[in-house]
């Protein structure tokens, strides 16, 4: 297996990740790839992935099985690149793209060399019901987080939008973690081990920040902090 995992190359491209699989039997490659994903689930979760499968000839069953396995792990397979005509047709039948804007990207993304607490995952919103983002570090969401969506971070969470889903900051016990949002109205808010639900709010909403103070979850308007 150690040998096959070296046959998996991961590159960051503009549209997500480009993953090149090649040089071995497809069944082994697919298994090795899924295993790789499981080992680094926080890195892969929510990723958009294009697969370069080289000369492998893939039928619908094989490709859709992999797509389903990936989607169970929160990965959206959107394109399959191949030198095989059969595979291209298969991909098209499944509604996948067979070309990406930059087929051979130069930029290589370094993987998992980030320190917990310093790194942040950038998520483009809106995060809709059923959407889940989990990250070992901080999370920044650009857009609304709707009810039914879930954010879990070992660090802090910042939402540039309305936060109405479930949010858990400091998921591994960091009680210094904070949650801030332009409108803080989560279904449920957790920081470290504490859980709270939003009180019913009246009047105009304003940006707020929630943190732990003496073991209690408190939310304060952003102005109060800047005024200090």
């Amino acid at each position, binding site marked *: 297996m150690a040998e096959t995992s070296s046959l998996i190359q991961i590159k960051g491209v503009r549209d997500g990740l480009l993953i090149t699989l090649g040089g071995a039997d497809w069944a082994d490659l697919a298994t090795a790839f899924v295993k790789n994903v499981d080992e680094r689930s926080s890195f892969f979760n929510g990723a958009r992935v294009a697969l370069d499968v080289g000369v492998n000839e893939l039928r*619908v069953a094989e490709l859709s099985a992999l797509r389903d396995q990936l989607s169970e792990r929160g990965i959206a397979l959107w394109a399959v690149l191949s030198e095989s005509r059969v595979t291209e047709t298969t991909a098209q*039948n499944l*509604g996948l793209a067979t070309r990406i804007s930059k087929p051979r990207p130069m930029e290589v993304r370094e993987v998992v060399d980030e320190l917990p607490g310093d790194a942040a995952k950038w998520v483009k919103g809106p995060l*809709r*019901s*059923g959407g889940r983002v989990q990250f070992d570090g901080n999370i920044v969401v650009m857009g609304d987080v*709707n*009810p*039914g969506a879930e954010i879990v971070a070992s660090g802090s969470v910042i939402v540039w939008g309305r936060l*109405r889903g479930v949010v858990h900051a400091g998921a591994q016990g960091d009680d210094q973690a904070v949650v801030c949002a332009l409108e803080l109205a989560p279904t449920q808010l957790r920081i470290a081990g504490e859980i709270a639900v939003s009180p019913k709010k009246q009047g105009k909403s304003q940006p707020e920040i929630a943190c732990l103070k003496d073991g209690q979850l408190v939310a304060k308007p952003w102005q109060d902090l800047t005024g200090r």
Partner: protein
Amino acid sequence: MTAKVVTVASGKGGVGKTTSVANIAVALASRGQKVTCIDGDIGLRNLDVILGLENRIVYDLVDVIEGRCRLRQAMIRDKRLPELYLIPAAQTRDKTAVSPSDMVRLCDELRQEVDWIIIDSPAGIERGFKNAIAAADRVLVMTNPEVSAVRDADRVIGLLDAEEKGPAALVINRLDPAMVKRGDMLSVEDVLDLLAVELIGIIPEDENVIVASNRGQPLALDGKSKAGQAFQNIARRLMGEQVPFMDLESQNLFQRLLGRK
């Protein structure tokens, strides 16, 4: 002729997908468009009933896919509108009888023959839903002004984005302006605020819809009904026309004269 494939989906059941498919198809056909609707709800078919074509089914969607008949043989022609066809779902099978790629192939074959293919998605987000959206060029997401329906619509919109079938267009069904005014129902603004997608139709609550469905006489054929008009407006918007949203507030002239907004 290259058809546009439009799928109507919702996540939650009972919000009015099937009724809307029937009415949008009828509205398009009444505007001279050639329309085929496909019932994607295999095992729980309904579209044939609402269109009043139940007693004319010989072959169904699964028969076409499994090669027991030609596509043409499964297309039931409507008596009222000669350019309207229905491909019914099989009632004795389940969703696994069809795969997403089957739907893509079927629609590709059909595209040459009609202007519009309207697909009725089953409730849920599993196989039946995936089948229904596989070939879609455009997806209309249906919701009612209720929190649970909006929640499910949000989930569906997210799934459509992930499948690159977005951006979805929203239809809000069964809106009761009086209840909204009393603050007892989510308003159009409340729904759009959460879902943040393009709005393509608002259909007012109208008990004639139920009567029409039971009779198999879609309401869009009735020029006087407000709900029927709303479906006609959706059809016009699908055809690229700019149609302002109906004023559902002003019920009649008398109220307007009294100065009600």
